[in-house]
């Protein structure tokens, strides 16, 4: 498969997965760019026995998590510098509400609330929720993408749900 064919087949998948992680069009496009640059770089070394979609999914997840970490670090840095430079009070990279174009307007408030809690989960738990609940993947597919056993995915999903429940109880008493 050539690079352009890969782009045409998987650009939507990459963009939407990134969007589920960052809930923001600009950031998702930035991640999509990084993913395809990475694919272009390592396309020659790709082993045909793996599936393209699984490989691209893995790259997208890793890039999205890296992007979020880098953004958090930038935010911390901006906060620290704002302590020393009183005139630069505005902290960039902060978004309270999401800008996810896939969310239906009537459900925006509810979905924003869910993402607020999902964003508090660990990387693996967040990934398993995104893949199963938003992308509708079954546990076998998730296991393949995350390079885990089906059992491990099952327990990860359960732990993610438990943590969501704990955080909900703590904040909203549900």
């Amino acid at each position: 498969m050539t690079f352009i064919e890969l782009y045409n087949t998987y650009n939507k998948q990459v963009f939407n997965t990134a969007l589920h992680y960052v809930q923001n069009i600009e950031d998702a496009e930035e991640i999509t760019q990084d993913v395809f640059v990475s694919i272009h770089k390592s396309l020659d070394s790709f082993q045909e026995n793996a599936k393209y979609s699984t490989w691209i999914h893995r790259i997208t997840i890793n890039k999205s998590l890296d992007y979020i970490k880098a953004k958090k670090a930038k935010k911390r840095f901006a906060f620290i510098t704002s302590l020393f430079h009183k005139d630069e009070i505005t902290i960039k990279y902060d978004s309270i509400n999401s800008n996810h174009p896939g969310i239906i307007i009537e459900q925006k408030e509810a979905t924003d609330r869910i993402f607020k809690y999902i964003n508090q989960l660990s990387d693996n738990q967040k990934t398993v929720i995104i893949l199963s609940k938003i992308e509708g993947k079954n546990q076998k597919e998730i296991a393949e993408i995350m390079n885990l056993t089906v059992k491990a995915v099952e327990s990860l999903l359960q732990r993610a749900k438990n943590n969501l429940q704990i955080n909900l109880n703590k904040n909203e008493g549900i």
Partner: protein
Amino acid sequence: MKNQNIENFLKPLENIEITEPSPYLYTRIQQKINQVATMQMPIKFIWALGFTFSLIVLINVLVIINKSKETKAEYNLANQMNLLPNNHLYSYE
């Protein structure tokens, strides 16, 4: 019951629609790929740089080893001939 609660809570996620990225995204990716390609140093240059650096380090190490050998030999010769190994004419002890 708990699981049912959380399943209901997560239900709106199933209605998230698939969206299209910007039509200009491919052009931007191409631009980024070209940028990365021009930013990368040619492999020959990297090897030459590494070779030069290791050569400099090797020369420095050899010079230091030789110098310490020379000073030892000079010191021994001065000792044998009862000469002072330094430029001071008087001992302050």
